[in-house]
């Protein structure tokens, strides 16, 4: 049994080429909208891990999950024996899909004390849904990192505008919109040189706008009822846009990175009474009690300070001139305090969990691809994996009012799924597949940069044969290694199926040791890893397929080195 499964796995990688390949640019449309994810480890919601589960996806919905369901005839079967299936991640706040605009210089003629609202960064009327571009690189970046929904805000300064929630598919933007004018966005960022140009100016202006939005909205309502004898309401698109937030009907997401920003934001909330969501919080641990008592929503930043690289032992005792501006004793005590400071930042998420405060993450300043690394550091610092997964799924679902349709893998919810080859928070886990709205996406693997030190002319460049033995079967083919612009390009071709060429990924070559893998896109997605050691004109090594084990492979050079 094992033998057959293994053979299948290897075989389709190398010979029985399928119509869809990763690198294929003209992907045909899927033959069916029904998928049967077979025999996976299902994490239906944070903390619930069940092996041997199947998930049936049909027409964008999760229609069934469980150990005993059968695949319908029209289902494309995804063999997920070694896979972990999670609910698609939800980005609780970001600028996903909003193209960056050039910073405009402020017009010279403007009186600094009274600029037009848009110059001052006051654009609460701007809607993210007017700006969202599904083809923007940030969308695929999010999706590749496992995110299936983004809560995205316009870019800007003090009041950049209102957010929208999008499914991170690649179709027409409007069709992917789940929720429009979801929240207002406020930050202490200013246009320098015009009012308000400072934090204190921004806060004063915010108070003014907030109260005037209330007054204007109330008057307008009164006017609508009985206009006769009433002064006409002044039209202001900004105040009109702020009315829902100023009457508590729309939350305001406030960027509050440092402890003083957190304090400031809570102070404004207390004064004015709006629905506060703290976002991009980096240093919020001083206010755990206050946040908990007021039940503020919190989105933590994933931008963590770097840990100081410990200096090599050999430098000790040597007086270094330029790097250490002070004596080693002073430097030590400084580093000690610094290390403690870094630790506090990394431990923030754990501190929130310990205090019983649920939270999500926001992505204004973090690349989604770096998220899991940062979360990994938080977990090492005491955050539970359950809380980490909540922050990526159930918490933002609830925050965005989507808990009934997203955030877990349950019957009836949107088919937003993430499939990984190892448990999510395992450092080596790779996201194999992402479902958005029932549509399957394969994340593009990053192309590893070759060791910079190795020369452009590599000793291993050229054509090589290969011969592998698996369970008594021998297969042969060629490996073509090229090096261009500091990077390796490797193509694997099986003799029995020469028209199918597999491109290698994650290539590294160091000290005669070449590693790469080939990814497949078939029913049983998986990665075939090569680990080869070169010596002169020959190499030997292993070939491994996830969970099946390793098998010997060897080969020799064809022709002359390039």
């Amino acid at each position, binding site marked *: 049994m094992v033998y057959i499964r293994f053979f299948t796995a290897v075989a389709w990688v190398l010979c029985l080429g399928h119509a869809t390949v990763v690198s294929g640019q003209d992907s045909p449309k899927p033959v069916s909208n029904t998928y049967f994810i077979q025999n996976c480890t299902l994490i239906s919601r944070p903390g619930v891990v069940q092996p041997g589960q199947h998930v049936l996806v049909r027409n964008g919905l999760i229609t069934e999950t469980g150990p005993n369901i059968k695949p319908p005839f029209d289902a494309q079967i995804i063999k997920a024996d070694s896979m972990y299936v999670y609910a698609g991640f939800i980005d609780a706040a970001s600028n996903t899909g909003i193209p960056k605009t050039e910073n405009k210089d402020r017009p010279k003629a403007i009186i600094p004390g009274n600029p037009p609202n848009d110059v001052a960064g006051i654009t609460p009327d701007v809607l993210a849904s007017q700006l969202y571009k599904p083809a923007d690189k940030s969308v695929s970046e999010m999706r590749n990192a496992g995110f299936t929904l983004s809560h995205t805000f316009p870019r800007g300064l003090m009041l950049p505008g209102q957010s929208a929630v999008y499914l991170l598919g690649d179709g027409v933007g409007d069709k992917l919109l789940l929720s429009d004018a979801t929240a207002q966005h406020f930050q202490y960022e200013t246009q320098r040189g015009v009012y308000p140009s400072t934090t204190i100016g921004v806060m004063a202006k915010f108070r003014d706008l907030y109260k005037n939005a209330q007054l204007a909205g109330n008057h307008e309502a009164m006017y609508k009822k009985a206009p006769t004898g009433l002064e006409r309401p002044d039209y202001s698109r900004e105040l009109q846009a702020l009315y829902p937030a100023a009457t508590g009907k729309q939350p305001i997401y406030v960027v509050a990175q440092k402890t003083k920003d957190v304090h400031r934001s809570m102070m404004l909330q207390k004064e004015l009474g709006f629905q506060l969501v703290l976002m991009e919080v980096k240093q919020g641990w001083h206010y755990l009690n206050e946040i908990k008592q007021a039940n503020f929503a919190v989105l933590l930043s994933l931008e963590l300070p770097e840990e100081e690289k410990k200096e090599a032992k050999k430098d000790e005792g040597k007086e270094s001139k330029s790097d250490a*501006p002070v004596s080693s004793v002073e430097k030590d005590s400084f580093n000690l305090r610094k290390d403690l400071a870094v630790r506090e930042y990394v431990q923030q998420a754990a501190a929130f969990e310990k205090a019983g405060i649920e939270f999500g993450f926001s992505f204004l300043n973090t690349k989604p691809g770096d998220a899991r690394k940062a979360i990994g550091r938080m977990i090492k610092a005491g955050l539970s994996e359950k809380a980490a997964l909540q922050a990526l799924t159930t918490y933002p679902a609830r925050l965005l009012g989507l808990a009934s349709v997203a955030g877990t893998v349950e019957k009836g919810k949107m088919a937003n799924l993430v499939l990984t080859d190892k448990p999510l928070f395992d450092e080596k886990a790779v996201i194999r597949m992402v479902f958005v709205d029932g549509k399957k996406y394969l994340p593009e693997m990053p192309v590893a940069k070759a060791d910079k030190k190795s020369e452009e002319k590599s000793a291993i460049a050229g054509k090589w044969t290969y011969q592998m033995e698996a369970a008594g079967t021998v297969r042969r083919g060629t490996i073509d290694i090229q090096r261009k612009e500091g990077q390796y390009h490797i193509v694997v071709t099986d003799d029995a199926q020469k028209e199918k060429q597999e491109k290698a990924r994650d290539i590294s070559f160091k000290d005669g040791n070449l590693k790469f893998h080939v990814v497949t896109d078939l029913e049983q997605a998986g990665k075939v890893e090569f680990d080869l050691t070169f010596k002169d004109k020959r190499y030997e090594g292993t070939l491994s397929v996830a969970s099946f084990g390793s098998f010997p492979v060897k080969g020799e050079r064809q022709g002359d080195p390039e």
Partner: protein
Amino acid sequence: MAKISNRFILLLLLACSQISAQQVKKAVTGSFLLKNATIHTVTKGIVVGDLLMRDGRIADVGENLPNAADVTVVDCTGKHLYPGMIDGGSRLGLVEIDAVSVTNDFNEIGDFVPHMKALTAVNPNAVAIPVTRVNGVTTVFAKPDGGTFPGTGALIDLFGYSPEQMSCGAEFVVMRFPSTGRRGRWDRRTEEEQKKDAEKALQNINEIWEQARAYSRIDSAAAAEKSTYLTNQPQMDALLPVVRGKKSLFIEVNALQDIEKALEWVEKNKIKAVFMGVAEGWRAADKLAKAGIPVITGPVLNTPRRENDRYDAAYTNASKMSKAGVKVAIRTDNAENTRNLPFHAAFAAAYGLGKEEALKGVTLYPAEIFGVAADYGSIEKGKIANILVTSGDPFETKTRIEMLFIRGWNVPTESRQTLLYDEFLQRTPGIK
């Protein structure tokens, strides 16, 4: 209470009317015998006795000095005599009003202008000069500031009507060593950029130095052949005495890394150097002592330069350097408030330097550093008569400087600030 204040005001009125009846007070010279004073000689301890001034110099110091006919005798019983204080670095006389740029004469255009002479621009009638000297500061090193080689500073006495009358005959080229520090909170350069800027500046200095040495060689060769090397190189001419080791180069340097770099540079180029500022000298005290480079430090009344430094880092700096064996003079690095020199010295004294070393730091040591110890820095026979007659310790805030002698001139202890006091303490007319 009302009675007392009335009487007080009456007294004041009397005093004021006396003053207003007088003509402008002028300095007078001649021979003065200051009798029975407590004399703080700086070099020879504290003695009670007399001091005779003649021809602008200290003619004698001793007990019961004889009284000659032409001598004005001043009873100084209970009074203290100190040598006039010397500020080792100031812009006094080179600036009238900081923010009015046309009155700023310490910063010429150009990064390499060592030939710009401060003495030329010293305004003998600067309002701040009398304001300064009535606090006991009689001599300052007026220095240009700005670029890497901003010019040549001059040691001047704070009395006289022309730069020539004020000059102490000691002029030195000033250099600002490239700094790796931040220039202010608005300075957003990365650490790398700061370092790079400093390295580039140092490279520039090295090129200048190479040229200067070449110039010196050619100039010497020309002299040896008894011919004149006619050229237009005023900058290089200004550097000649430094290149030839005849004069010290006064180097402004503050951050630890820069001090270390400057020490290397000075050693490599075999330069006689004096370091100025030296804010982080306490972190390099032993190295400075080992190099034997004297230091003019200050302002003492200053904040720590780094966030994590102890609050009193600037107060204790002088003491820490001094204890390591560095010769430490004190400066204000100010212009209009050069008058606060005694207080800078006093804070250094309180925070470890001790009164004696602090007093030397504003008298004898700067005199030595500027090469004028034969004339300045202590109360000794033959030295120039820059003498303070005080009610006590001149560093102590409430002490008054009762009489002031500069080059033997009895200079009135009066300035525009005291005149405004006289005029406005009891303004006439008052409210009506």
